[in-house]
């Protein structure tokens, strides 16, 4: 891994060749995967649905994650958002939070007033430390309304089998409706929601030695057309 790419987004311009390569990569992964490994359910036990549109370049085994925008008036004390806020955060949330449930992960993302900070909680199927309701979390300063670092969290959370997981925030482009994350044997799809960065998880390419994780991503518009593909090589920082 080159030093120049560490700990920051390494967005690459979308090109036909790269798009084709990534599309083939997804296809190969899907084609070689064990049918039994394709997830049927999300972490909360609900059915893993397919996205409503066909995603260009993504062949099959696509799982749509769940997303819910929770206004501060509906936060109550039984929601994931309320649970996350029980931790003593430095920041006070403003506006709505975004709760997401994936195959092996669930997250909550908040934004502080004046769009200066995003923060939130990460959770996974694996056993966390002690009796903590969330296995991890992150806090990220915004500069001009944007993150300069994806805030990789790779401590505490793990898969059901005990493998390490990595979580980052991604800020999709304006036209993006779907963010696709390559996972072993399938692709996980996140919808944009609430105007907040999307907290995503990966269950492979998480490197304990070196404290970094690699995410293979593609963004698609509301019709499923691929807008860009890129790799984020995220490094723990700060």
């Amino acid at each position, binding site marked *: 891994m080159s030093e120049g790419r560490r700990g920051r987004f390494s967005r690459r311009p979308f090109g036909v060749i790269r798009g084709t390569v990534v599309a083939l990569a997804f296809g190969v992964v899907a084609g070689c995967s064990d049918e039994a490994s394709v997830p049927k359910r999300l972490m909360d036990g609900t059915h893993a649905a397919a996205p409503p549109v066909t995603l260009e370049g993504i062949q099959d085994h696509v799982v749509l994650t769940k997303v819910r925008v929770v206004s501060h008036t509906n936060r109550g004390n039984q929601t994931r958002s309320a649970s996350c806020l029980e931790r003593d955060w430095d920041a006070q949330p403003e506006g709505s939070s975004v709760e997401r449930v994936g195959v092996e992960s669930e997250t909550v993302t908040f934004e502080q007033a004046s769009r200066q900070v995003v923060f939130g909680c990460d959770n996974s199927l694996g056993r966390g430390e002690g009796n903590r309701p969330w296995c991890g979390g992150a806090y990220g300063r915004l500069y001009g309304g944007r993150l300069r670092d994806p805030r990789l969290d790779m401590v505490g959370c793990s898969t059901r089998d005990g493998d390490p997981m990595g979580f980052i925030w991604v800020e999709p482009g304006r036209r993006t409706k779907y963010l696709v994350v390559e996972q072993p044997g399938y692709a996980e799809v996140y919808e944009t929601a609430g105007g907040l960065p999307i907290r995503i998880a990966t269950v492979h390419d998480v490197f304990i030695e070196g*404290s970094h994780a690699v995410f293979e991503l593609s963004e698609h518009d509301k019709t499923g057309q691929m807008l860009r593909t890129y790799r984020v090589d995220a490094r*723990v920082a*700060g």
Partner: protein
Amino acid sequence: MLHAWKFFAAFAIAFALAGAGTAGAYHTQFIAQNCNYYPPTPTSYMTRDGSITVALYARNEGYQWAGGCWNDNDVDDSPGDPTANGGTGGEGPDCSGFTFKVWRESEDQNSTAFHQWWRLRHIHGPYLAAHFKAALGAPNYPLSKSAAIKMDAFASDHHIGMIYVPNADGTDQIIEAKGEAYGTNVWTRTYRGSSTYNGVRRLGWSQP
């Protein structure tokens, strides 16, 4: 008159070249040119005084987001890096990487063993400041701030610093990687009295 124009032109070119060099100065390639990835040296014990000595080597050596490598020449060899950019490869630790290294922790969050990471060994470790605040990881233990002594730490969601010397007035001399504009050094801080900071202790210190 012609000589004057030639002189002006030469001066302008030299000025432009100097400016170009300055603009690219933050990519000093310090890590690439000076640091290594050698395995750590396991140690059977660790004293607070010994770790203060380790920490002081980083004093005046700068700050690097996601960094973890520095020499001991008392100069930031990569000054002026942009904030929160881990790609510049400069000298110095960031706050959580500094704590990880001084506390001789392992990349394995389940291990409490001591690992001596030498100054030029580039490593950050797996912990964010928020992880230290939450005392995540086997070697990190939550601590009442009133019980905190030298080489214990105070951590918030976005920063961590270790106690160099507690002051009589309730403040502390904190050794910390403070930021790109400040570098790594010792400052008087009020973390002990701040509600946003929690106490955290590295388990297993030998005395003193």
